[in-house]
């Protein structure tokens, strides 16, 4: 990648808390204007990595450069919405916006003006004189989001930005994030909601136990080796059909889907897809059989869940209680 355009650059970054190695030698680069999803299970090290990028904590080893320099010098050019959100309960929305703006180098009046515009876009007009404690949870979330972007940051870091939002507001947030990307903002967000990441991100990075497992474009991530699967609809008895299919060569797992009608069939790495399809057609009466769509959920489970997830699905398909 072209490092001259790198907005965020982590090289061999490590951070340890007591005996726990929260981040273990991560290399990561983000280009200007990208949206990158940082994925990983709880305790994977995502928040620690984000805190280091924001210069809230310092790495024990490795180097971090943000917008071409020390992260501490880039604070005014970064926006941040943490997962655990908070507001000053007794403060009025306008005063809170002005305060956050001043911290980021904006004059109080400019911050209020921009906040009012952004809140209007977020369908919250006329709340600048209301106390934060008088707002609903969703309104507070919008206020916090706006406070993170009023200084028009070059880099926006969002930690679980869509959690707790209803579908209407989730869509509103997504369109605002995409509009920011259109204006050239580089966006890094961590999430557990894979479909959001798949829909919004150009790239995804998957971390687990402090280590980077995957760093690729969404398209490449979905083409992970070992993630080929078929979806078949047997004429009758999805469970019975699944146990029959599981015994065929080249089949790693066969699990009835939630609809109770179809079966998801994971293929072994070395299996020939056409041969497996033929063997299924010969063994089971099916209405249809086709290549299954791989999602980031599958990638996540495949890489993070690993062998544990696979053994669980195998047990389920063969009727063994988990």
């Amino acid at each position, binding site marked *: 990648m072209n490092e001259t355009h790198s907005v965020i650059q982590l090289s061999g970054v490590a951070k340890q808390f007591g005996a726990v190695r929260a981040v273990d030698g991560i290399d990561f680069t983000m280009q200007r204007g990208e949206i990158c999803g940082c994925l990983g299970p709880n305790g994977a090290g995502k928040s620690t990595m984000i*805190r280091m990028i*924001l*210069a*809230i*904590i*310092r790495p*024990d080893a490795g180097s971090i450069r943000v917008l071409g320099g020390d992260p*501490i*010098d880039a*604070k*005014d050019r*970064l926006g*941040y*919405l*943490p997962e*655990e*959100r*908070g*507001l*000053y*309960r*007794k*403060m009025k929305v306008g005063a809170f916006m002005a*305060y*956050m703006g*001043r*911290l*980021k*180098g904006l004059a109080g009046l400019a911050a209020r003006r921009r906040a009012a515009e952004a809140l209007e876009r977020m369908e919250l007009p006329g709340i600048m004189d209301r106390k934060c404690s008088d707002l609903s949870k969703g309104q507070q979330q919008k206020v*916090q989001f706006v*406070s*993170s972007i009023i200084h028009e940051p070059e880099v926006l*870091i969002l930690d679980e930005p869509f959690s707790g939002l209803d579908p209407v507001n989730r869509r509103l947030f997504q369109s605002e994030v995409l509009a920011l990307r259109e204006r050239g903002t580089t966006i890094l967000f961590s999430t557990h909601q894979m479909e959001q990441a798949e829909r919004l991100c150009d790239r995804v990075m998957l971390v687990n136990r402090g280590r980077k497992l995957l760093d690729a474009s969404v398209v490449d991530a979905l083409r992970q080796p070992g993630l080929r699967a078929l979806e078949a609809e047997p004429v009758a008895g999805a469970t019975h059909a699944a146990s029959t299919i599981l015994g065929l060569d080249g089949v790693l797992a066969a699990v009835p889907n939630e609809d109770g009608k179809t079966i998801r069939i994971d293929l072994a790495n070395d299996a020939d897809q056409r041969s497996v399809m033929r063997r299924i057609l010969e063994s089971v009466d099916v209405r249809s059989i086709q290549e299954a769509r791989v999602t980031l959920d599958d990638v996540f489970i495949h890489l993070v869940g690993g062998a544990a997830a696979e053994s669980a699905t195998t047990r389920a398909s063969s009727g063994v209680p988990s």
Partner: protein
Amino acid sequence: MTKSRSSHFARRVSAVAWREFVSMVFTKAFIFGVLIVPGIMIVTFAVIPALLHEGPRAVTGRVLVFDPSGTVAPAAQAALESILARQLDPAADFAEVGTSGAGGTAGLLAATGASADTVSVRFESTTKPESELKNLLKVGDCLAYAIVPEGLLAAPPEKQATYTLAVATWTSPSHTSLFTRSIRDGIVKARLDAAGEDHDALKALLAAPEETAIRVSEDGNVAPESAAGRMLIPMGFMMLMWMVVFTGANQLLTSTIEEKSNKVMEVLLSAASPFELLTGKVLGQGLVSLLMLGIYGSLGVAGLVFAAMADLVTPMSLLLLVCYGVTAYFMVAAMMAAVGSAVNDLKEAQSLVGPVMLVVMVPLILWLPISENPNGWVAVITSFIPPLTPFVMILRATGTAEPIPFWQIPATIGLSVMASIGFLWVASRIFRVGVLMQGKTPTPMELLRWAMVR
């Protein structure tokens, strides 16, 4: 620090400090709290005396005196007229204090404004039995009656003998005091008359002299001396400093805990470094403390001017109050901010604030020995132990019992400044780790370990 970094530092620190200041000062609670204390002072010093001067209830009637000689009633009447006359002549009342020890009665009467205009009482001799006197009192035919036994008028009087004064339940305490005083004086006068002595001449001879104590200041000004006032002034300085320091520092503790518990801390840390945040918070609450020091200090000085004791407060002592007050604030505020950053709620904070409070209570406990002997070993040693230094030094430096060696003032100010920097440095190290910590309350040892984290 580069120029850019230093300007960012100044901007962020001032933004945090201003928010802290505004969020504290522009609240109903603060305005009420700041005004209520001066309000209580004004009520105490101005309104209550004014109410006391509202004027007593008028009293008209007779007091019956049963005594076998029949000499006490006229003597008591003379004594009453003498007492009422003295209300118009405070100097005469001063002379009275030493002779009868009943100055309190005169003082009470003076405070209530008893005078010949409101008191019209006749003392009359009676020979009626006590049961009849009681009935007269019950029906309101007399204000009171007194039974004076013969032994009280003998020469010498019987040591154990007492006279009885009976009053109605509706009699005011000041009127009861007036009757008591008159009859007591009347008995003494009757006794002396019976012995052929001149009561007035003896009274004048026995009157103890009253001193006129004055205090001469270094510039030659003269003011009335008050030993109690001189003892209380250093205490007043220290209490004022203690109060404003703890108000600011305690608010710092509360606001830090609030920011941590309502999760706004992480957003703040993404915009400012922990050191910038801590500095801004400490300065903001420091301004609040300074404002309170200004308000209460001005009121205190005004009170001293009112009490003609302004000469006891020099510009130097006010300057020292500010110097020691600022350093005391930084030290205590640093400790409170460190505690606030390390805990999740106020309840958890109590266990860590306790030791801090114990340490800074020491000057309050040692107030008397330090004020009495400002150059004693207790005073000198505690002067050089931060964070006690500013509290002890303000006691020593503003007292007038004995001048302290001048070198100790710059030395302790220097020590306080160095200690403030040290306390703030350690606090910033703890703050940086603590604000991101959740879970169990750390022990003091763990706090020290956090201070050592790279």
